[in-house]
């Protein structure tokens, strides 16, 4: 079986600086795959390239059987690849409900959209309670919920989450990670970028460790979680 997402020798540069230096990995349907690594490892650059916001200088990206490395961002969403960006990037002056509706911008099925908005409110009840409120008034954790709910509104085949736990309180972080577990259980395919390696690896099927633009180590989530070098570098153990 061919993978849902195949990345082959991907290189991305900002001017003369190469941020991603030829990485390859795949995501199978139904899997949770995580990219971990420190700041500046190239994780966010990788996701922004996959969703079309950046153009690779080299390499291939095949999503659902179709090469997408030259497709503009707004058309990649239509193929079923959703991206919840780092820093959440909700639309602050629109209401929560308007944000969710924008997640379904390309869909025409009003009934299905209404049902999925309800599903987002079931997943995150706080969003339902504040549906008419400007999204900018939400707390960081609530904004993260909204960003994830919004990305799900496009009914993606693959959901990319960039640093969903960034800047959140431990309780809120647990809630977000719990939600990812639930999404995984319901069959959603997820590509997760995280600095919180412990949390990410414990729920991922596959993990890749990135360092300054390269993948330096790959394995199952469990293997990486028990790998000595990973434990030293990313899990804060001596």
């Amino acid at each position, binding site marked *: 079986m061919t993978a849902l997402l195949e990345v082959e020798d991907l290189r991305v540069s900002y001017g003369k600086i190469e941020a991603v230096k030829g990485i390859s990995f795949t995501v199978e349907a139904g899997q949770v795959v995580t990219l971990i690594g420190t700041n500046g490892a190239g994780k966010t650059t990788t996701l922004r390239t996959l969703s079309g916001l950046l153009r690779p200088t080299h390499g291939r990206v095949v999503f659902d059987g179709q090469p997408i490395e030259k497709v*503009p961002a707004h058309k990649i969403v239509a193929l079923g690849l959703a991206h919840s960006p780092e820093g959440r990037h909700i*639309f602050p002056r629109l209401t929560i409900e308007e944000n969710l509706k924008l997640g379904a911008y390309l869909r025409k099925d009003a009934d299905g959209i209404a049902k999925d908005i309800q599903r987002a409110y079931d997943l995150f009840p706080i969003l339902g309670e504040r549906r008419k409120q400007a999204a900018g008034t939400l707390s960081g954790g609530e904004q993260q919920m909204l960003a994830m709910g919004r990305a799900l509104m496009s009914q993606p085949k693959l959901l990319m989450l960039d640093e969903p736990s960034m800047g959140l309180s431990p309780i809120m972080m647990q809630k977000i990670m719990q939600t990812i577990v639930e999404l995984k259980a319901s069959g959603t395919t997820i590509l997760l970028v995280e600095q919180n390696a412990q949390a990410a690896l414990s729920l991922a099927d596959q993990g890749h460790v990135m360092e300054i633009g390269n993948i330096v180590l790959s394995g199952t989530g469990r293997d990486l979680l028990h790998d000595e070098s990973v434990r030293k570098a990313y899990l804060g153990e001596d």
Partner: protein
Amino acid sequence: MNTLPQQLANGLFLGSMYGLIAIGYTMVYGIVQLINFAHGEIFMTGGFGALTVYLALPSGTSMWVALPLMLIGGTLVAVLIATGAERFAYRPLRNAPRLAPLITAIGLSLALQEAVRNWYPQATSARVFPQINAGPWNIGSVNISSGDVFVIIAAPICMAALASFVRATRTGRAMQATAQDPDTAQLMGIDTNRVIVIAFAIGGLFAAVASLAYGLRYGQVKYDMGFQAGLKAFTAAVLGGIGNIYGAMLGGLVLGVAEALATAYIANIPGMGQFGGQGWASVWAFILLILVLLLRPQGLLGERVADRA
């Protein structure tokens, strides 16, 4: 007639026209953070587009028939030039340093003026613009001409239509999303290039309506009419809070009324005799702008937001 109600009416007329033009500045700035300094000239070409349609009609055509056709003609020309400028002058510079599109805008503005002056028949001086053969009417002490009536009806209709378009349609929401966060808007599946073209087109449409108002009021159009009007409308957009469509209209009205009142009344203040009259109108308008920028830099309705660029 120099009564207060008359001056307020003059101010509302001027202000509505400024507001209509200001919409073009503010929408484009709100979405691409570009001050389109050629927008005054887009307004001017709208006036010549309308005049061209009028001249093509058989003589003796009623203004009630001619006016809608002139509006369509003016709109076509202004929208075409506005969207053409976006596509061929500004889009290639989307990621260039900010100074590049700004200089391009100034160059485009001169190019459009010169093109009309040189190529439009007898356009080196002002060309006579047709009038609606009705009125003027007296309401109490206020004298209203047919040209005033046009803009006083057209401006609120345009504004209401724009407000509901932005609030209630799918494209309107895409516009708000693009203004707030263009990258993330693309992640929603929004074609932001299309949204930008629509913003320029709406600016062109409103400028064309304003140019008709100008022609009907002053009885002429001229290749350089966009300079002053554009500068005032830009002032109105900043005054109201650039990026905010309600601010543009409010800024226009405040500016228009302030200008009319200053023209009529400053001279009555003891010792200020020489500062009244039409010649000083622009000075007072820009003093108002400076005061607002000092006391409320985000403009009347603007939000204090960090610069994204």
